[in-house]
């Protein structure tokens, strides 16, 4: 029973990691950049949600959509200002810039709002259902539902729409995509927008599930989602989903059966193991295929 309970809790946490990891992997797939500011976008999503609820009294769905919108615009702006000028520079330059953007976002939020954690307002009163001895809360069901809907929409966009085809084409061969008449810059902007919107959704869900938010809340989940993306195979979207779920479950199994002191360590243990055994990730081929 304890195992099943931790599995359910782990899948809920893992769904959140998966939403963040998808953004990492999409951006990597299209511009080969590890966007270390991605965790901070998630943090900002949580804060947008905070103000939407506290200041404007918005209910859940408008809050979610607003945070996704704000963060997608932010993601597009960051790409345009910080990363696009470096597109032809060595990768390490862009990577260091991404770390700079991350510190910038954390410190702007800290400067404007202070470093102290704030309680995320209660949008739902938590109800717990017991299913054959396993406790499932309405918040967990909400997390599963939102993650599922977003992932279905994402799959639809990527495989069924014109912009989705453009995204896949750019990630596979940028110059060939240009020769098809695809506007590569715009396609990259859309990729950042979608990835950032998913991170914002994760931020809102975390605010609801673990209701304390602060300017540095993005660091650890960001790193774990990055590990999840690498675990699944960086650049591969289903890999990021799988990696996120595995990370969430692994973390809560450690909490349940060992000690919560090691819940963060497990992420890095997984990273080390995957880099030693299969650096291309679970779903990665030798030549890692993207988006």
């Amino acid at each position, binding site marked *: 029973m304890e195992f099943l309970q931790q599995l359910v809790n782990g899948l809920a946490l893992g769904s959140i990691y998966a939403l963040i990891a998808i953004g990492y992997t999409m951006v990597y797939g299209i511009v080969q950049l590890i966007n270390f500011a991605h965790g901070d976008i998630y943090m900002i999503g949580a804060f947008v949600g905070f103000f939407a609820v506290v200041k404007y009294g918005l209910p859940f769905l408008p809050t979610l959509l607003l945070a996704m919108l704000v963060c997608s615009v932010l993601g597009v702006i960051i790409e345009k200002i910080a990363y696009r000028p470096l597109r032809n520079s060595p990768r390490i330059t862009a990577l260091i810039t991404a770390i700079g953007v991350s510190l910038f976002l954390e410190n702007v939020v800290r400067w404007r709002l202070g470093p102290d954690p704030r309680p995320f307002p209660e949008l739902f009163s938590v109800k717990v259902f017991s299913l054959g001895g396993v406790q499932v809360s309405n918040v967990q069901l909400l997390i599963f539902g939102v993650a599922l809907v977003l992932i279905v929409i994402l799959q639809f966009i990527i495989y069924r729409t014109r912009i989705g085809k453009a995204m*896949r084409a750019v990630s596979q061969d940028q110059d060939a995509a240009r020769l098809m008449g695809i506007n590569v810059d715009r396609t990259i902007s859309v990729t950042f927008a979608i990835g950032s919107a998913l991170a914002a959704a994760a931020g809102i869900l975390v605010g609801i599930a673990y209701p304390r938010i602060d300017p540095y809340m993005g660091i650890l989940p960001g790193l774990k989602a990055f590990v999840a993306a690498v675990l699944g195979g960086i650049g591969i979207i289903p890999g990021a989903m799988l990696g996120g779920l595995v990370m969430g479950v692994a973390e809560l199994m450690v909490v349940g059966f060992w000690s919560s002191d090691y819940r963060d360590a497990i992420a890095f243990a997984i990273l080390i193991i995957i880099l030693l055994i299969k650096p291309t990730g679970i779903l990665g081929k030798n030549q890692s295929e993207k988006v």
Partner: protein
Amino acid sequence: MLKINNIDVFYGAIHALKDLSLTVEAGQIVTLIGANGAGKSTTLKTISGLLKPKSGNLIFQEQNITGKAAQQIVALGIVQVPEGRRVFPSMSVMENLELGAYLRKDRVAIRDDLDRVFTRFPRLQERRSQMAGTLSGGEQQMLAIGRALMARPRLMLLDEPSMGLAPLLVREIFEIIKEINQTGTTILLVEQNAHMALSIAHYAYVLETGKIVLEGPAAELAQSDKVKEAYLGGRTN
């Protein structure tokens, strides 16, 4: 149809094209031949807007296209079949063809063109749901050409379509290029296989280290001693 006037193109400090001029007359097959590293691909990339010339200009149908973005060039009807095919390996044959028509909105006409491509390349129809990366070299070349046709090009640029193909396939590809030209598409064909290229082209240019060194009607160039010696392996016929 296309006029390139005195362009200079650089890769950093490397001066890849030097004061290059050439003209492609509407309705013709024009070929640009030259050894590896002569600057043939650079010329096509510049026409397609992937590279910008430092000086000189390009005029397409009375319109200055110098410095235009690649998607604008495609929209004007200049479509390239790049060196090494460059099909999208993790997309199906069908999706590759659809991407060829990326800028088009006329759905009905796109369907017609798709049927036409499948009629011309029945192998592609058989394999339409297969990933492009799993096709053979010849099939990938057909896909790359089919994908370009899906854009309804006025001017098709082909970069070494015979590269790495068996002689029988080379013949087939050249036959197809001739047919495409006969149905009204102007062609600029880049080749190292000078013999084959000269046999189907109307007009030809010879490129050496970024400079045009020789030009003329293809049939005449094929007979010139210089071309025979340097590009046709000293053949006498």
